């Protein structure tokens, strides 16, 4: 494939006037593929820490000929709304909105989803409902919401230990009202507690890739579990940084993980 070096990036707002989502369209290098890719970010602090990696992934996919759309969920990033009022259903609806936007903008017949952390979990849930996703990449997915909440709560408590003066409030509550700089409402908390990708029992997609860059989440187990729900299920362990917990000033981009994803997608989404 001859690839042009002229690629353009187009930031824009989409969605209804009272719930506008910020999105970025990465125009594909020629010849463009007939499959667009929507990138589903993680949430909260993990979104901020992995923004650069997702940007680079989008650029690399566009270089490989995929029209790509990145977008911020409602109440996140540059999108409208406060983080106080969001929940998983809203974010799933945002992914569907992004899919429709990309279809219209790029004129593609097929759509694939690539999600990181909770973005992967949301993408998987959308795939079970949407039933028309060509390929699905789950990059270090949050398999179990309870574990995710516990891990984030632990990181939050750890962060408080670095305060030179200890805060008086924010301890002892059964359900945290905030985690690592972001509010968490009871609806979102409940949704996360119920999240368990191992309970998926519906067809997901034609091609599924689970990429695990660190151990800790039962990604291999998830790959085994999802075998019946996709024509092709691949699992790759690609050692890399936990970019979503690393210090923001490092701006880490795990190029080996991104290469693995782009290679796989280029192969399955011809």
């Amino acid at each position, binding site marked *: 494939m001859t690839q042009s070096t002229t690629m353009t*990036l187009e*930031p*824009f*707002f989409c969605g209804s006037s009272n719930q*506008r989502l*910020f999105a*970025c369209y990465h125009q594909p290098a020629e010849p463009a593929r007939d499959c667009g890719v929507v990138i589903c970010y993680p949430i909260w*602090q993990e979104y*901020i820490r992995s*923004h*650069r990696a997702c*940007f680079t992934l989008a650029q690399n996919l566009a270089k490989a000929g995929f029209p790509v759309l990145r977008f911020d969920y409602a109440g*996140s*990033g*540059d999108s*409208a709304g406060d*983080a106080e009022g969001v929940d998983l259903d809203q974010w799933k609806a945002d992914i569907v909105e992004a899919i429709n936007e990309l279809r219209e903008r790029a004129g593609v017949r097929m759509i694939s989803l690539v999600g990181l952390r909770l973005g992967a979990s949301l993408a998987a849930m959308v795939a079970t409902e949407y039933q028309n996703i060509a390929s699905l990449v789950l990059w270090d997915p949050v398999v179990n919401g309870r574990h995710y909440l516990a891990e984030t709560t632990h990181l*939050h408590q750890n*962060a*408080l*230990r*670095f*305060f*030179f*003066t*200890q*805060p*008086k*409030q*924010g301890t002892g509550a059964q359900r945290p*009202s*905030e985690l*690592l*700089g*972001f*509010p968490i409402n009871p609806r979102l908390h409940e949704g996360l507690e119920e999240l368990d990708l191992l309970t998926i029992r519906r067809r997901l997609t034609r091609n599924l890739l689970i990429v695990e860059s660190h151990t800790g989440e039962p990604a291999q187990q998830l790959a085994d579990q999802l075998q019946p729900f996709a024509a092709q299920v691949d699992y790759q362990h690609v050692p890399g940084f936990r970019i979503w917990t690393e210090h*923001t*000033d*490092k*701006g880490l981009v795990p190029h080996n993980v991104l290469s693995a994803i782009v290679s796989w997608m280029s192969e399955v989404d011809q």
Partner: protein
Amino acid sequence: MKEDILLCGTTQSLVGILTTPDAPVDTAELPVVILLNAGLIHRVGPNRIYVKIARALAAQGVRVLRLDLSGIGESMPRVDNLPFQQRVLADVRDAMDTLARMHAAQRFILMGHCAGAIFSLLLASQEPRVTAAVLINPEGGNDDWKEFDRQRKEATYYANFYGRAALMNRERLRRLLTGQADYRTIAHNIFKFVLWNRLAALAFRVRARLTKHISAAVTNGTDEQAQAHAVLCAAGERVPLLFIHTEGSTGYEHLRTIAGDEIDRLSATGRVQIVIIPETDHIYTLLASQQRLIEVIQGWITEIMPDPQPTENITEGVTDIGVAHSHESLNPV
């Protein structure tokens, strides 16, 4: 409140989000706030604080541009091969030119967290269109200062880990009292990470003060001090400055160490205000501290605006915040 994408620069390769109030503003008179990246974090800022600040200021009638400098966020790298610092200054000037051309903006208030604060100060010292600057947790200093900061944070972390929090935890307390704790590791960690780091930090403080006095007497200051003095004086003489620090921050200690006299002098003239926000960290992790930060900024901006806009969100002042220096009202921009 309205948010639009603004592409800046001659090649439109700098991406920003312009937040504008619903009500029309006096475009020529009212300055536009430009928020500069906090290190490598894209224009939403740490914990999305920049978005909150922009929306809060728009609610009181102020336009705010959250700008991605070249190579950060969605902005493409520049192609003119300028050195880093000049590149940043050129990016901000490009954004000002675009705002002047497209939105008739003539004056600007620069605002930024951490590295964004440093660049805001630098521009405030030399760019005629900048009429004020808000400097949130500026950090600075050489590698010794960075090591000093690391030692203090590490000591604080372990002191908190083994301190009150541990004693309040029933399970940990039980293990400690029943011989089931790893006493050797605890002793090692307390000695190495708490005591040793605190001693090293104390030694650094003494050394920094001695060096300052000796070098000031012999050479009229080191290069770093001289540069900091010059930038701070130039900015402070030109425009009102608001320094916001979190309680105990190394950045504030650095500022006092290298330019304490100048800060005091400028504070006395009312050109500089310093506000300390308690019980938080460098990136304002707790929501309460984010709210306090926004209230402090809103209050100060109202004070310096030529024609303050009425708003319901402005606090009565900063009386609940520890104010390191109190002053008379600042002069209008």
